[in-house]
């Protein structure tokens, strides 16, 4: 293990990096993502950022250049799965053999010099998006490449992204990353740290998402992080989603030092996506509109190829434009039932408090988080990891909003439990569904909406199942 300013790194990777002063000097020459976010926040319209990453370097440069004219505010370097899991050798091997087989850009295998080439290829600044339970090496390479925004956190990049990395390990790995950002911030170099509240992306109740990001944000702030992007995944019911996005700001005001910049980020719908271009485009546009109504600084766009596979550049550029259109002037007239939003926001904030306050009241934050997940007092649905109980059972109510049908050991008050039970009370005479049927229907929500749309007139064609191989 080598060390880069407190960051413990694999020796081989550390050996390739420039020294700390050179890294900082180069970072100072870059336009920080934090500045772009601040501008967007001031302008009142969310900036749009796509996910994008392909294996080959030349292909990645071309991809970024192809997307820039669509007007993203930030571009992504989305990392492949092998690199995320620290299988750097597999990534390097596949890169040598068949780069098109990689589902992202293996930045560690390419090395920081190529990272700088990516950053130089476009005017728009870049963020590294990945899903590494332990993202230290990747972070070091990204820093050396001059990238000023880095996604991830010890909970959100562990539980959805790996099977058996102990939370204690990931939380401490990310603590080191945050501490480096703290050092840099103190030197005047601002790194935007985005927290992945999206989690397993499918039917995540807003308070689960927000509880996780609040805890990660508090942890990051304690290490000196000064710019935080807090991401929430669109669930599909707009009043709930607007409320959740707005709650990001109120929760930040409650739990964080006011000197920290906080940017709510919307991840456009991350579940099973519509299959027809027209309905997919509507959902993408709808996400842009939601982002504006919810006061997000940034929206991560989807594409009409989402159901099929990693999108090509054209579809991705279209997605950026479509999301931006949802947030554009022509729809500024749109009002929403504010009473309903306030009601949702009130309960979301209350639920988050019930989840995080006991943890924050413990003397040591990271062990308290670990213990809470071990006891199921914190939990996420559909966990990939064995380190969350996954006893939370999310269910859509009649309006499509995501409620708790089961809370496992989450320490919710009776009032909260009663509200969810009431909201999920079956319509009188409704047929009982098995848990499997109910989960399937809730997951396929937009697919069913899409089918209903396409078959609402007698002759309209329905969507076809995606061709996947």
């Amino acid at each position: 293990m080598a060390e880069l300013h407190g960051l413990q790194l694999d020796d081989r990777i550390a050996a390739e990096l420039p020294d700390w002063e050179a890294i900082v000097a180069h970072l100072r020459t870059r336009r920080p993502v934090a500045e772009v976010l601040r501008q967007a926040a001031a302008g009142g319209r969310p900036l749009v950022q796509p996910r994008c990453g392909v294996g080959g370097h030349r292909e990645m440069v071309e991809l970024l250049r192809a997307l820039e004219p669509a007007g993203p505010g930030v571009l992504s370097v989305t990392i492949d799965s092998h690199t995320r899991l620290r299988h750097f050798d597999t990534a390097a091997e596949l890169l040598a053999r068949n780069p098109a087989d990689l589902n992202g850009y293996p930045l560690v295998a390419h090395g920081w010099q190529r990272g700088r080439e990516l950053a130089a290829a476009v005017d728009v600044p870049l963020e590294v998006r990945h899903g590494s339970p332990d993202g230290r090496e990747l972070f070091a390479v990204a820093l050396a490449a001059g990238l000023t925004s880095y996604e991830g956190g010890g909970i959100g990049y562990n539980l959805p992204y790996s099977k058996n990395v102990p939370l204690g390990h990931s939380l401490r790995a990310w603590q080191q990353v945050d501490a480096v950002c703290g050092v840099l911030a103190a030197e005047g170099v601002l790194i935007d740290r985005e927290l992945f509240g999206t989690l397993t992306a499918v039917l995540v109740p807003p308070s689960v998402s927000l509880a996780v990001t609040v805890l990660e944000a508090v942890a990051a702030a304690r290490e000196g992080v000064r710019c935080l992007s807090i991401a929430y995944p669109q669930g599909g019911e707009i009043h709930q989603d607007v409320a959740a996005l707005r709650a990001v700001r109120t929760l930040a005001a409650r739990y964080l030092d006011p000197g920290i910049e906080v940017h709510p980020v919307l991840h456009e719908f991350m579940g099973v996506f519509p299959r027809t271009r027209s309905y997919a485009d509507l959902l993408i546009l709808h996400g842009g509109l939601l982002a504006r109504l919810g006061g997000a600084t940034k929206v991560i766009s989807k594409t009409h190829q989402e159901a099929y596979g990693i999108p090509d550049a054209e579809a991705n550029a279209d997605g950026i434009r479509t999301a931006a259109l949802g947030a554009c002037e022509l729809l500024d007239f749109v009002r929403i039932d504010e009473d309903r939003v306030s009601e949702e926001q009130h309960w979301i904030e209350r639920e988050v408090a019930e989840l995080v306050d006991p943890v924050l009241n413990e003397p040591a934050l990271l062990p308290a988080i670990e213990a809470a997940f071990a006891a199921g007092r914190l939990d996420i649905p559909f966990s990939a990891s064995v380190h969350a109980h996954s006893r939370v059972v999310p269910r859509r109510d009649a309006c499509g909003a995501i409620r708790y049908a089961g809370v496992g050991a989450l320490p919710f008050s009776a009032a909260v439990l009663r509200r969810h039970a009431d909201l999920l009370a079956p319509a009188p005479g409704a047929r009982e569904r098995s848990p499997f049927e109910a989960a399937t229907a809730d997951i396929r929500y937009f697919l069913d909406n899409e089918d209903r749309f396409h078959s609402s007139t007698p002759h309209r064609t329905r969507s076809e199942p995606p061709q996947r191989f």
Partner: protein
Amino acid sequence: MNTPAGPADRLVILGVAESDAHAVANQLITMQLQSHGFTVLNLGVCTPLSDFADAHDRHPHAEAVLIGSLNGHAHQDLRTLPELRAAGRLRCPVIVGGNLSVGSRKAGTDRQRLLDLGVDHLLADAGGLVLLLDMLHAARAAELQHG
């Protein structure tokens, strides 16, 4: 006549490929198979092929090994199947399902190269899974009877 084993005895080994963390389909398929009476040994996400082989060694009567892959890395993640098979392991039907290559337009070659590795069945959707398992089961019963 050899009565086919009742559903209660039907065991399958399920998991998600090595580089892949997509958990939702995995958990739904578990529910689905259990509701059809299967016993599911679920190895979860990010499971190397050798772990599937180890599980099969421990449970040789498992009817099939079911591997999900959604992130596009199916081919790389299953590359050691020929080796394992040559070593006499994983000698049961290997069924792979999900989204089996990178990109939104799929080529026929994506499918072929998985079959070339020795994958026995490819499914895009879990809908047909029980049917497939039943057919394989019936075929094996017939084989035992006539063979």
